[in-house]
């Protein structure tokens, strides 16, 4: 993500927040069934996804 942004010309990259993803959080989303989430978390040791949710900020340089 950051690589593609910098390749496009963006500068001043900041990660503004970062948090782990929990099954309880994903259960809120209608796109995921409980069965799918059970399967997904079972793919990983200790049932923890190697995924985090983050906010990013990039700047387009001024002229």
């Amino acid at each position, binding site marked *: *993500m950051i690589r*593609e*942004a910098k*390749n*496009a*010309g*963006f500068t001043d990259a900041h990660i*503004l*927040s970062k948090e782990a*993803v929990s099954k309880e*959080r*994903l259960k*809120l*989303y*209608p*796109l*995921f*069934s409980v069965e*799918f989430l059970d399967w*997904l978390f079972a*793919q*990983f040791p200790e049932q923890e996804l*190697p*995924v*985090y*949710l*983050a*906010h*990013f*900020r*990039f*700047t*387009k*340089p*001024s*002229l």
Partner: protein
Amino acid sequence: MDNPSQLKWTAEEAARLVRESYGSVVPQGLGVAESLYTPDEIAWLPESVTAYALGLGNPIRYADLQPGESVLDVGCGAGIDTFLAARKVAPTGIAIGLDMTPEMLARARANQKILGLTNVEFREGRMENIPLPDASVDVVISNGVLNLSTEKGQTFRELYRVLKPGGRLVFSDSVVNGQLPRAVLDSEAAFAG
């Protein structure tokens, strides 16, 4: 997914998958909206907006939007972040919502009528080919959408193109720490969700 070369779908197949998933989604209450936004932020929005909150974060909170600014919301869905942005940049600023899913755009436009907001517009299109002129917006926001593109290089070039010099891109998304198992990479639900 941060490495498109690992995915089994072409760009068009991935877009179709996302469009079908989000076009047919049925809300399950307000849990997502309540987990991402404060009551003060969303109390003024009808359930036809908040029930379709499907983002991963709250980019408005970090975007520092000011009155008079122009904002593009990429992957706006039914419009929750677009409407929040419109309120921040009012009265002279404008919020533009972009989405490729016809059903979501229809909801967004209906929601705009319900809210009576005049500094909002919605456009249909792909983030890989944004229907806006060069250097036309002050801010681009997005909420859990950019990872749905399998052409991120092209997407970021488009985001860069439409921003004015000095403009900012503020977005939320998921990031993978390491490699995902093949079974997860090949899962349509994991990709589109």
